[in-house]
């Protein structure tokens, strides 16, 4: 996926965030709080508990459906994170070779499980973050974080990161196009060229940061970011949203739902056969 396509898809998140659904209308703090709780409960599972991650997929999926977010867009965006995630966990199967399960000739080691777990967790976390932005809007997420106590300095960094992502990406694209124009063949940039491009981009970024700061000073910036928008209310709908998803997260965190579902046919079969159900553990 090219840089321009990636940018286009980020802009699509802005469009999706401008929709008017019940989920979009909720106070952003409710969505941010539930998402944080989701991340904590999902990421705190043991490293070998792969099957227990599966019920966690319900949260981003249901939110995406309710908020009218196309699943294809989410999966494409989440897939962008895959190379980094794979890089993080790629050595696990080599390091941890303790056998956890044997299915005929297939041997599942601890490293394989932890690698799969890393990939799944990352995909779920990225997808959930994308859904949050798509049903809330990045600026509203920042604002909610500010109202929940995030330090202003961090908040401003986050807002500027998003605002200038587009400007920087446009600059990077122009530099890449200028390079292609002077290439005899359409080859990929070499490491040396990438280094030069990134160095230039960094210098331009520094220059721009200086100019933006000057522009802020010219309009009276004194270290605090003023907020024009009226503050929304944390009402009944928000409490209901938090309660429902809070209970769901509690259930999937405490109970091993996939295992219980797997046990169910055996339990039913045992019951039908008149056996004592207590043998099923």
């Amino acid at each position, binding site marked *: 996926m090219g840089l321009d396509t990636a940018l286009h898809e980020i*802009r699509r998140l*802005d469009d999706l965030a401008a929709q008017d659904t019940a989920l979009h209308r909720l106070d952003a703090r409710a969505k941010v709080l539930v998402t944080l709780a989701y991340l904590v409960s999902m990421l705190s599972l043991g490293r070998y508990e792969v099957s227990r991650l599966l019920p966690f997929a319900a949260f981003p999926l249901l939110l995406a459906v309710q908020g009218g977010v196309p699943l294809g867009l989410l999966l494409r965006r989440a897939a962008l994170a895959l190379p980094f995630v794979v890089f993080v966990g790629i050595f696990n199967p080599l390091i941890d070779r303790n056998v956890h399960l044997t299915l005929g000739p297939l041997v599942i080691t601890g490293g394989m499980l932890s690698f799969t777990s890393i990939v799944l967790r990352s995909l779920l976390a990225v997808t959930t973050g994308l859904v949050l932005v798509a049903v809330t809007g*990045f*600026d509203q997420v*920042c604002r909610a974080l500010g109202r929940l106590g995030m330090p202003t300095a961090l908040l401003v960094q986050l*807002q*500027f990161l*998003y*605002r*200038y992502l*587009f*400007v920087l990406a446009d600059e990077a694209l122009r530099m890449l196009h200028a390079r292609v124009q002077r290439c005899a063949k359409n080859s990929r940039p070499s490491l040396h060229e990438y280094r030069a491009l990134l160095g230039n981009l960094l210098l331009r970024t520094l220059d*721009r940061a200086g*100019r*933006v700061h*000057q*522009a*802020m*000073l*010219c*309009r*009276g*910036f*004194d270290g605090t970011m*003023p*907020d*024009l*928008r*009226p503050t929304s209310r944390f009402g009944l709908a928000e409490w209901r949203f938090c309660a429902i998803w809070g209970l769901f997260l509690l259930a999937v965190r405490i109970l091993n739902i996939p295992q219980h579902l797997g046990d169910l046919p055996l339990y039913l079969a045992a019951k039908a056969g008149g056996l004592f159900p207590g043998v099923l553990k």
Partner: protein
Amino acid sequence: MSHHIVELKGLSFHYPDGTPALDSIDLTIHHGESVGLVGANGAGKSTMLQHLCGVHVPQTGRVRVGDVPVVPSTLNEVRRTVGLVFQDPDDQLFMPTVAEDVAFGPLNIGLPPEEAALRVDQALAQVDALHLKHRPPHRLSGGEKRAVAIATVLACSPDILVMDEPSANLDPRSRRLLIELLRGFKHTKILATHDLDMVLDLCERTVVLHQGRVMADGPTAAIFADHDLLAACALEPPLRMQGCPLCGRCN
């Protein structure tokens, strides 16, 4: 109204690497004037503008805006009087939405949110951009960004409007709209630009800068008619004064 006079006396400025930018500039601009500041690249136009709103403070000489000297302790006061529109609107539009960006200045000068919201609507209406109010800046076209950047400054109700290359990167229609817009403003206007045709349209007075010095200061028509002066300062007469490219005669 003496409080709107802009006065530069013996202003000199060097960048930290030692590059000289301004050399003994003396200039007085009166209330209600529209002044074009022209010169080649590196002549010192932007640096001079940045002195007017305290982005730079004078190293040698002095700058006064009305009765207020531009020194670190008066910058807030100076910035309420002088509104600077930057060359690149992306430098000026940093908030998540247009409305928040336009409100940034009014809220910073202590206006209550209701009044700031009113100023936002008025300023955006002035530049015919009220329909862009809820858009994020990265979704605007070049002309729209320029209009909103001007609105961000107008919302602070400055007495003096200072613009750095206002017509840069604008298509002909957006440029014409901008000229008409600026023509309607009653502010003291100082425009630094390479667009001499725009200066001809908007400014009755022109100051020519060359290598950090004021080379000429006078009525725009007279300055642009002096081809030797323009050539010495690496400039050309406005296209409108260059005659018909086909027959060679003046328009």
